């Protein structure tokens, strides 16, 4: 598994940082209000309030607060989260770019009582940052947690393919 993770750092996204502001798709999920970066409630103030953050973390089974976007992460740790989710075939999730909204950036840290970004929420519950997600990926816990959310990890199918060879 760790070989897969090492390879993940070389996937597209790892090389594409800092090329400008194109393609800032802050929300991968198609429907809904978006709820990114203060847009949902019409402005910067209040977007970091407990209620606002609560709404964001409950809006989707998989919610990530990061620097940059899944298409263009702006921090290695945030990119790690994106790449791990991608390895599991999870492309439909809510991603919020805290660099776009200082109130949200502080608000999410207060909400989870966690000092750093990225932050991953599964089913509204704070799971941890990049280190913990990496651990969960390596020890199989992430596959299990995704299964509880009704999400079938792509790695289950990948393993099946490997068994057939």
């Amino acid at each position, binding site marked *: 598994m760790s070989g897969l993770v090492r390879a993940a750092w070389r996937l597209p996204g790892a090389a594409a940082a800092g090329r400008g502001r194109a393609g800032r798709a802050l929300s991968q999920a198609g429907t809904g209000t978006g709820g990114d970066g203060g847009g949902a409630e019409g402005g910067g103030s209040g977007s970091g309030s407990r209620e606002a953050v609560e709404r964001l973390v409950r809006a989707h089974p998989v919610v990530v607060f990061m620097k940059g976007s899944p298409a263009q992460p702006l921090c*290695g740790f945030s990119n790690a989260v994106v790449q791990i989710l991608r390895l599991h075939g999870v492309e439909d999730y809510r991603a919020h770019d805290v660099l776009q909204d200082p109130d949200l950036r502080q608000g999410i840290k207060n909400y989870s009582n966690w000092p750093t970004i990225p932050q991953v929420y599964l089913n509204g519950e704070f799971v941890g940052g990049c280190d913990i997600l990496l651990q969960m990926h390596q020890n199989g816990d992430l596959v299990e947690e995704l299964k509880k959310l009704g999400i079938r990890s792509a790695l289950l199918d990948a393993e099946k393919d490997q068994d057939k060879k």
Partner: protein
Amino acid sequence: GPLARAIRAKLDAALQPTHLQVLDESPRHGGPPGAETHFAVVVVSGHFTGLSPLQRHRLVHAALRTELAGPLHALAIVARTPQQWESDPHVPPRPPCLGGSKHERHRD
């Protein structure tokens, strides 16, 4: 540097680790050597027994609350019990920096 020493002292006091590595990774994140903004710590301590990864990380954060509110911008954590460390004394590869600090208008 001074922050590295402070981090080491705080973790020693709070967690009495049997093994402790404090690494200034700031150069890997676009800072000059000795910038002391991004750190990685490997903490092996019996205090972690029975605790989930989240709880372990929170213990480390609690010990470094002052630093995290100040100059410590990012902190990568490996937190294992002595038994876990004995059976696996390796740390996962660190993700490469993508220059995130350069995109910030102001610090955390």
